[in-house]
């Protein structure tokens, strides 16, 4: 008998499993899921919430004492308005994508819809990192333009500019580094398995 035939014979005759009775099943129905999707949802909500809090904080508390040049002020207001629109757009996309996840669809569609939902949040976080880097640059430029440099010579002004640029760069670089570490950590725990399984199905379609 061929190996797999033997396995099939055993498999099909195998009905001896510890049986779960109706009461136990009933109890199980009311337990909480610990699925990857649930964790992805919770973590995504936390990340979206942090993103929104960050924008609100900037809006309510971060009104610099220094006055920005008029053009920069207008530009900042336009960017602020766009930030809110983009945030609303990301939240809309996240919930729309989340609602499309159905465990009754085929495996490939299910995997792809979970990954798409998570990607929306990843994109939102990336967007926020860019926003923070942008805010740092604007802050640096504002400080430079608002600093009283009457008594400074060109070299001092240049050094001050280099200092501001270096601080902004280091802060931005540190932020990107932390975010990359965070995502590597999160990726392995949450999405790695889904990604691997999706890639396997996708690769099959590509190579044949």
């Amino acid at each position, binding site marked *: 008998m061929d190996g*797999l035939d033997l*396995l099939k014979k*055993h498999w099909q005759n*195998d009905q001896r499993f510890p049986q779960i009775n109706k009461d136990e099943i009933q109890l199980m129905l009311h337990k909480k*899921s610990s699925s990857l999707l649930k964790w992805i949802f919770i973590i995504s909500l936390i990340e979206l919430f942090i993103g929104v809090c960050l924008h609100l904080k900037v809006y309510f508390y971060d009104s610099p004492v220094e006055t920005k040049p008029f053009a920069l002020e207008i530009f900042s207001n336009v960017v602020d308005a766009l930030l809110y629109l983009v945030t609303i757009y990301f939240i809309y996309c996240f919930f729309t994508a989340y609602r499309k996840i*159905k465990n009754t669809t085929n495996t490939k569609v299910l995997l792809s819809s979970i990954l798409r939902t998570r990607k929306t949040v990843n994109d939102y976080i990336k967007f926020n990192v860019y926003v923070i880097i942008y805010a740092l640059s604007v802050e640096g430029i504002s400080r430079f333009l608002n600093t009283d440099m009457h008594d400074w010579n060109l070299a001092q002004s240049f050094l001050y500019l280099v200092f501001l640029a270096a601080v902004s760069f280091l802060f931005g670089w540190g932020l990107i580094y932390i975010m990359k570490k965070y995502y590597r950590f999160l990726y392995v725990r949450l999405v790695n398995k889904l990604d691997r399984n999706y890639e396997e199905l996708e690769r099959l*379609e590509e190579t044949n």
Partner: protein
Amino acid sequence: MNANKLEQEFVDLLERNQNILHKICKLYTYDSASHQDLFQEIVIQLWKSYPKFNGDAKFSTWAYRVSLNTAISLYRGKKTKISTVEWDQSFLNIRYEEYNAAEEEQLIHLYDAVRLLSDVDKALVYMYLEDKDYAEISETLGISEGNARVKMNRVKKKIKELLIKKGVI
């Protein structure tokens, strides 16, 4: 249908069809604690989508698809590496009086080989063992029928290679 009646109906159906879940848990887990864990998660996922189960498909067909989806896409699993897990062979349910020593050994190695496969390959093995046709495999996994056939041949080859590597055949 009121909530209690729906719940009762679901519990009845699930109790009758629970071996489908047990079999999938047997493929995707390595010990009884994980088996129970996955079983529990599948029950939750089935119950969650049961109100939309319209009865066009057989409950068993619908249940095995949701169960496979749960094992492949939703179950978090244990962090333990497969190679470090010494699984309990009594878990395999091999009734000794039905198989001779050589067959028994071969069965243990076959299950061992299946456990080393990827999640997707295990799904194919499950459907092969359950005698599902390629149209159904294609529909369940979301790949074309031709690719389901190709993939199935690769899985069989992979199992054979694993057995050769172990010196079983």
